[in-house]
């Protein structure tokens, strides 16, 4: 009764799933921007995107609460648009997961874009393909392994997110208590046996996801190598 752990598992997968979709779309875009477009201030953008990787979670939580809170830029906007505060909602947990996992996606996409032979892209342009078509047919397929790695890492990071989530989404039983937060509550209230059970199941789930993605990735890599030949 006290803990709805099934809910926590569902919520964690939901939050990590949505966050990973957002990270996939924006991360690929941002990496493309940083590698090929190089707008003015791209160095700064790169640093800003990497910071969540090195900052302690409490600091990320502080930044997020400043942005998403009622008085924050984003928080106020959401409040005006929807009439509902973003804080203490599963959506806030998605924001936290998104911010901490985006750097992983951007980094791994960037390095795979950088490793693509520019001659291939030049050939594509010379054969009359425009930017979008080249991106869709040449760059993206060639960057496949890197993007997949980014997706796996982002999803795993989102599943484990704790500090920033606690700050912006709160630890509300049955509403925003993801598995890491439920484990925190269990340990804090001395229910070690339950905590250990949840830890084991969560580790197993994470391992299964990694296994699936490794199999997918391996198959993908073999297919990719086959195409090369």
């Amino acid at each position, binding site marked *: 009764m006290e803990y709805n752990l099934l809910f926590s598992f569902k919520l964690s997968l939901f939050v990590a799933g949505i966050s990973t979709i957002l990270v996939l779309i924006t991360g690929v875009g941002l990496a493309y921007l940083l590698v090929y477009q190089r707008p003015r201030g791209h160095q700064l953008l790169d640093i800003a995107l990497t910071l969540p990787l090195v900052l302690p979670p409490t600091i990320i939580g502080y930044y997020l*609460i400043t942005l998403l809170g*009622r*008085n924050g830029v984003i928080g106020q906007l959401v409040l005006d648009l929807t009439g509902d505060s973003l804080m203490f909602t599963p959506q806030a947990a998605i924001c936290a997961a998104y911010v901490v996992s985006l750097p992983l996606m951007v980094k791994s996409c960037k390095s795979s874009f950088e490793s693509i032979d520019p001659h291939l892209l030049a050939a594509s342009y010379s054969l009359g393909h425009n930017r979008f078509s080249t991106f869709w047919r040449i760059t993206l397929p060639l960057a496949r392994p890197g993007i*997949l790695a980014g997706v796996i890492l982002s999803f795993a990071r989102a599943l484990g997110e704790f500090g920033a989530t606690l700050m912006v989404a709160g630890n509300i039983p049955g509403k925003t208590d993801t598995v890491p937060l439920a484990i925190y509550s269990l340990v804090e209230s001395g229910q070690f046996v339950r905590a250990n059970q949840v830890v084991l199941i969560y580790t197993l789930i994470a391992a299964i996801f990694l296994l699936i993605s490794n199999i997918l990735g391996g198959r993908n890599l073999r297919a990719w190598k086959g195409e090369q030949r």
Partner: protein
Amino acid sequence: MRFWRLLTTSLFLLPLLLMQSVGHSRQSPILVSAAISLRRPLMEIYQLYKQQSKERHIQFNFASSGALKMQIEHGGAVDIFAPASPQYLDLLEKKGLIHLKGKRPLAANRLLLISTLVGDRGKKIASMFKGRSVQEILLDKRVKRIVVGDPRTVPVGQYAHQVFKRLKLWPQLQDKIVFANNARQVVEYLRRNEVDLGLVYATDWQRLLSHLPYREISADLYTPIEYPIGVTARGKRRGGVDHFFNFLLSPASRQIFNRYGFADGV
């Protein structure tokens, strides 16, 4: 392209499958932000409240008092605030974010001296505990390490600091003292036998360390350990808030707090 189709469909499908079970209700419930150490008694009190009252839209938010305070400062929609120490409530009150403070604390706690020296050596220590003052126990030569919370940041460490200062033992014990970063870590060091003595809350002893012998620290050696409670400025006019607030301070909930080792908050 088969890979992409597989990846994107699975990524989109998974959240959609989970979406319906997560979707949140439209009514905005009463939100009680409480120190994580109060979780178990508060959940039990809530069960009791649900049986007696029609009001069911109450939610809890459990974290460390510092994080909870920061959420309220940034406009978090909290109606009732129950931190682990009065300072958090007072700081928010100064900012005009607290509408009403409870006339008495929600709960109170006591400080205990715990020893991990059990088993062979334990017999000696048990006899050492018996009939000897806290001062004598602390200065015993067999005691090599004493864990307390870091007095700069951890409330349980601040109370321990007061005790050592009033006993005039702080300088003498410096070499033996190990600082922990939070109350849980103090407990963890004791649970894992990393230290010989430690100062913890009575509630922590009851929940997590009840297999170890303890000695009560005299209450005049430290300021009262109290868990205050208040209604926030937001909770001021909201229906049902006052009713639950009063229930939390009622004898029925005090009884539940006592069962979890909290002393009477009078």
